[in-house]
């Protein structure tokens, strides 16, 4: 129903909760218990702490370059929360931390990755989770392929893949969407339109009025939602998941949000945007409005917030400590995962290096 009524070509965007935490579209408010809404808020708050801490650790030189998530928690979490993490597939880009954490990645995994270990990519066995995809939009065809494998096996799964506004310009976005459209695969293509691809603003990325307009070129429904509104993101993704699970094919969702922080910790946003713009989007922050909503409903207050943040910080610090004590990558590990069985030519290179290292020790 949402997919039909909120046609982006007609300039419609789904928004359920406004910036003051008021519900402005009761009719489309998703069915969630108070507990669930509180749980959602806690997840987003936790993700934000992990994110803020990551930036702080990076600034101290204890992590390498990383991409902050500030301001995009609702889009990431709201979409993931609408799926079944014990069953469905998540195919991430690199800036949907709240979704990752919900899906089963830990702060430790994330920090380990940014500390420079491939081990950060290892996720629990019981969830379906692809590693982060660094080449922009290159994960989109993977999601389509996963969709094919699901349709092939007839299992009751859905795939969600994430990409940015910049990602929509890559050929892989196009080719992956097109494949999913042709084969009517159960895939949700979720665009985190955070208004920038590094310094390049959304309007330079495409002349399309809305990125969700692109869906029509692949014969699939597209919907644009207020990406800082947890309820809108959740409702749209929920419906998209049902639609896809029922065999109707893929859906594209464009979540309008804003990267409040740096592109990565090597970036300086003041080069390409104004403080006014940042301030305006700060007001639209997804956590601020969710907190207001919860407060009005009597489900949350500053004390609870402080307690929870304190708890989160403690938990996060403990995980970070594990990362700092993590052993460096060994030569063995560099070679071990290249092939199922190590070819002779790799063995030789490894042995040669081991001998060299041993000789060096010996000296």
């Amino acid at each position, binding site marked *: 129903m949402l997919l039909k009524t909120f046609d982006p070509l007609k300039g419609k965007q789904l928004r359920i909760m406004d910036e003051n935490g008021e519900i402005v579209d009761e009719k489309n408010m998703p069915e969630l218990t108070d507990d669930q809404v509180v749980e959602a808020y806690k997840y987003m708050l936790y993700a934000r702490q992990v994110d803020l801490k990551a930036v702080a650790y990076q600034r101290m030189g204890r992590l390498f370059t990383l991409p902050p998530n500030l301001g995009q928690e609702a889009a990431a979490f709201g979409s993931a929360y609408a799926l079944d993490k014990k069953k469905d*597939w998540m*195919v991430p880009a690199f800036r949907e931390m709240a979704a990752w954490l919900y899906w089963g990645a830990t702060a430790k995994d994330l920090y380990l990755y940014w500390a420079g270990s*491939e*081990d950060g*990519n*290892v*996720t629990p*066995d019981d969830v379906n989770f*692809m*590693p982060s*995809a*660094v*080449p922009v939009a*290159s994960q*989109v*065809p*993977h*999601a*389509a*392929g*996963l*969709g*094919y*494998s*699901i349709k*092939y*096996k007839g299992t009751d799964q859905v795939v969600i893949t994430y990409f940015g506004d910049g990602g929509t310009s890559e*050929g*892989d976005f196009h*080719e*992956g969407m*097109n*494949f999913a459209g*042709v084969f009517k695969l159960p895939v949700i293509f979720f665009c985190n339109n955070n208004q920038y691809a590094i310094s390049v603003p959304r309007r330079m990325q495409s002349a399309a009025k809305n990125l969700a307009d692109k869906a029509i070129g692949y014969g699939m429904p597209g919907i644009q939602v207020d990406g800082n509104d947890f309820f809108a993101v959740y409702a749209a993704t929920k419906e998209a998941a049902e639609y896809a699970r029922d065999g109707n094919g893929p859906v594209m969702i464009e979540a309008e949000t804003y990267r409040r922080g740096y592109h990565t910790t090597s970036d300086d946003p003041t080069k390409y945007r104004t403080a006014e713009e940042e301030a305006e989007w700060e007001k639209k922050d997804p956590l601020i409005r969710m907190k207001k909503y919860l407060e009005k409903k009597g489900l949350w207050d500053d004390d609870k917030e402080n307690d929870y943040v304190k708890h989160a910080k403690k938990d996060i610090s403990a995980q970070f400590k594990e990362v700092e004590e993590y052993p460096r990558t060994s030569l063995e*590990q560099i070679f*071990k*995962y*290249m*092939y*199922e069985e190590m*070819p*002779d*030519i*790799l063995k030789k290179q490894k042995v040669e290096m081991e001998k060299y290292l041993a000789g060096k020790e010996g000296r």
Partner: protein
Amino acid sequence: MAVMNMVQAINSALDFKLKDDESVVVYGEDVGLEGGVFRVTEGLQKKYGEKRVFDTPLAESMIIGTGVGMAAGGLRPVAEIQFSGFIYPGFNQIISHVSRMRNRSRGTITCPMVIRAPYGGGVRALEMHSESLEAVYGHIPGLKVVMPATPYDAKGLMIAAIEDNDPVMFLEPKKVYRAIKQEVPEDPYRIKIGKAKIAQEGEQITVVAYGAMLRTAQQGIAKAKKDGISVELIDLRTIFPMDTDTIIESVKKTGRILIVHEAARSFGVAAEIMSLVNEEAFLYLEAPPTRLTGFDTIVPFPMGEDLYFPDADRVYHHIKKVVEF
């Protein structure tokens, strides 16, 4: 045993694996209904259905990229790229994902995928239809690169490639597709990836070739034989991981080596082999390792291609040169 050409032999391998393993899917441009422009997949869609053998839209990055996803989802994708000259739009998927998924995920997500493509020239084809970029794939860590020279090998290597838990670039010499017939068992068999074959034993010089050039090498060797030159011929079969031992042992015996390939010379496969020989058999060398290859030019359109591709005469000429050094 049946007599098969390479098209039939590969078809037979695909047929076996489709029957044998439900997770195998075969797909690409025109591979389904039509059976591929070279008919390598002919009849398979009819036999196994549209879900397992299917046509895709025209997009190579998608063909390869969806394979990564299918593999993660538990399938064994066997993707056809219509000509090796059209793999390039899919390079990013190959380099960034196909070859890296196992390592990136510390073995938790693998990519047991076969990317098949007819490669090479000498068939008076259109532009971009005569390329040979095996050295490039060989340089990408995480891939295996297989290039069969005969129908028999093609079948055994293809079955092994599909059963391999790592990604395999399977480059098929289109010049050989229908040019050679051979006895090929109808039953399945495997040829180990990473093992070269001594196609002919000899004493005075080692010749290394693969794919379509094997036959060219054999023809050149036949001429050399008339001069009484005893040649050991190695069919490389796998470009990476290369069977260094077989090459080195042979060179230690003969002291001389000629490598023949149709790809451009600079940074080609021959260079790697020459280097390996330097590293492991330097003191055995009686003549400089030598290569006979395509030029560092674009493969000419058909009116010029005979000048480009190594032929039997040039193989013969080079064998003599190396032996007489």
